[in-house]
C-alpha cells in the first residue's frame, strides 16, 4: 500500500491527478464529438446527395480505421500543419502542439463519428407526425427543433450516448502514446521507476473500472430523469 501513499513517497497523488486528466480529456473529446455529430448528422439527413456522401465518408473512415492510427496522424501531423500556417505568416521556428489538444481532437473526431450515428438514429425514430404537427401549428424551424424535436431526441439517444461515452473514456488510454500524463501514462512511469508493472497496471484497470461504473450509474439516473413523463 506504500506505493499509493499521498505525497512525495508514493504515487497516490500523481495517479489521482492523472485520473482527473483522463476525465478531462474524455469530456473534451465528447464535447468535440457532439459538435461534429450535430453537423454530420444533419449532413446525413439532408436531401443533398453530396452532403450525404460527406457524412457517410466521415463516419465510415473514423469508425473503420484503428484509433491508434488516427492518433498518430494527429500527433505527428498537427505540429507540421501549425508550422505550415505559421510559415505563411512569417514565423520560422519549431512549434509543438499541446498534447492535450491533439489527444482531445483525435479522440473527439472518433467519438463524433459514433455520435453522428446515434443522433441520426434518434432523429429518424421520432414520429413524423411531430414534425407535421409543429409545421401546422406554425412554429418556425429553429423553434420546433429546439423545443420539440431535440428534447425528445435526447431521451431516445441517452442509452446510446452512454455507450459512446464508455468507448471514448476507454479510447483516452491510447493518448498515452503521445506522452499526455493520464492514467495509462502515469502507470507506465510508475511501473518503470518502481519495477512493479503488475501492481500499477492492475491499479489502472481498477481506476478505469471505477470510472465506467460511476458513469453507468450517472447515466441511469439521467435516463430515469428524462423518461419521467413516459
Amino acid at each position, binding site marked *: 500500500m506504500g506505493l499509493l501513499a499521498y505525497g512525495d513517497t508514493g504515487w497516490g497523488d500523481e495517479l489521482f491527478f492523472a485520473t482527473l486528466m483522463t476525465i478531462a480529456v474524455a469530456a473534451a473529446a465528447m464535447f468535440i464529438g457532439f459538435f461534429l455529430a450535430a453537423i454530420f448528422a444533419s449532413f446525413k439527413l439532408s436531401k443533398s446527395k453530396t452532403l450525404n456522401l460527406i457524412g457517410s465518408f466521415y463516419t*465510415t*473512415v473514423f469508425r*473503420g*480505421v*484503428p*484509433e*491508434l*492510427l*488516427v492518433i*498518430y*496522424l494527429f*500527433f*505527428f*501531423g498537427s505540429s*507540421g500543419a501549425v508550422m505550415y500556417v505559421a510559415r505563411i505568416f512569417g514565423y520560422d521556428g519549431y512549434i509543438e502542439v499541446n498534447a492535450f489538444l491533439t489527444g482531445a481532437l483525435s479522440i473527439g473526431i472518433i467519438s463524433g463519428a459514433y455520435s453522428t450515428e446515434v443522433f441520426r438514429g434518434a432523429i429518424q425514430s421520432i414520429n413524423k407526425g411531430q414534425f407535421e404537427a409543429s409545421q401546422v401549428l406554425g412554429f418556425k424551424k429553429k423553434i420546433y427543433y429546439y423545443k420539440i424535436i431535440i428534447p425528445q431526441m435526447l431521451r431516445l439517444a441517452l442509452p446510446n450516448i452512454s455507450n459512446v461515452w464508455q468507448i471514448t473514456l*476507454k*479510447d483516452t*488510454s*491510447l493518448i*498515452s*502514446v503521445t506522452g499526455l500524463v493520464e492514467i*495509462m501514462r502515469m*502507470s*507506465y512511469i510508475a*511501473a518503470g521507476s518502481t*519495477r*512493479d*508493472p*503488475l501492481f500499477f*497496471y*492492475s491499479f*489502472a*484497470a481498477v481506476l*478505469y*473500472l471505477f470510472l*465506467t*461504473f460511476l458513469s453507468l450509474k450517472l447515466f441511469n439516473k439521467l435516463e430515469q430523469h428524462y423518461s419521467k413523463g413516459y
Partner: protein
Amino acid sequence: MDLMIESLPRLLNATKLTIELTLLSLFFGIFVGVFFAILRTSKNRVFYFISYYYSYIFRGTPLLVQIFIIYFGLGQVEWIRESFLWIVLKEPYSCAILAFTLNTGAYSSEIFRSAFETINKGVVEAAKGLGLNRSHTFFKIKLPIAIRQSLPAYGNEMILMLKGTSLASTVTLLDLTGVAKHIISTTFRPVEVFIVAGSIYLIMTFIIHNFIKFLEKKYSY
C-alpha cells in the same frame, strides 16, 4: 505520392500479421465466448458470477491495460516465470493473442448470451414434444437460431477486433499500425501514410461487412 507507392509493399507485408492476429483471436475468442455464455445461463450462482465478472472486467477496462498487464505485468511474478505458462507469456506475439482473445471473448459472450436468451420458448418446447434429446435440441435447434441471431452484432465485434489488433504495435509487434508508425516517425509525412494504411484497414472492414451480410442472407428465414 512517391512515399505512398514506396510504402505500400511494406504496409501490405505488415497486413499479413494484422490478419493473422485478427483471425486467431476471433477463432479462440468464439470458444471463450460460447463457454462463458453457457456459464452465464447456468443455474449455479458461482458459475454465473464468474462469467458475469469476467465480462464486466474485460469490457470495462481499455484493451491497452489488458495487454500491458499480460505482457509487462505477469512476467514479473516469479512462479509464472518458472512455470510452463512462461512459454506463452515471454513472447509479445502470444501475449497479444491472449489479450485479444480474452477481450473479444468477453464481448462475444454477451452477444451469444443475449442470442440464446431471445430464442422463443415454444421452439424448445416443440423440440421436447417431438422427443429430441438435450444435445440434439442444443446443436440442431438452439445453436443455429442463436448463430443467426448473433450475426449482426458479431460482425461489429469482428470489425472492433480488427481495429483492436493495432494495439499489438505497443508491445513491439510490427503489424500494419506498427509499420505505419515507423514510416511516419522516420519520414514525418503522416498524411500520406495514414491514407495508405487507413485504406487497407477500410478494405478489410468492407470485406468483413459484406461477408456478414452474405451470411445473414444465407441463414435468413
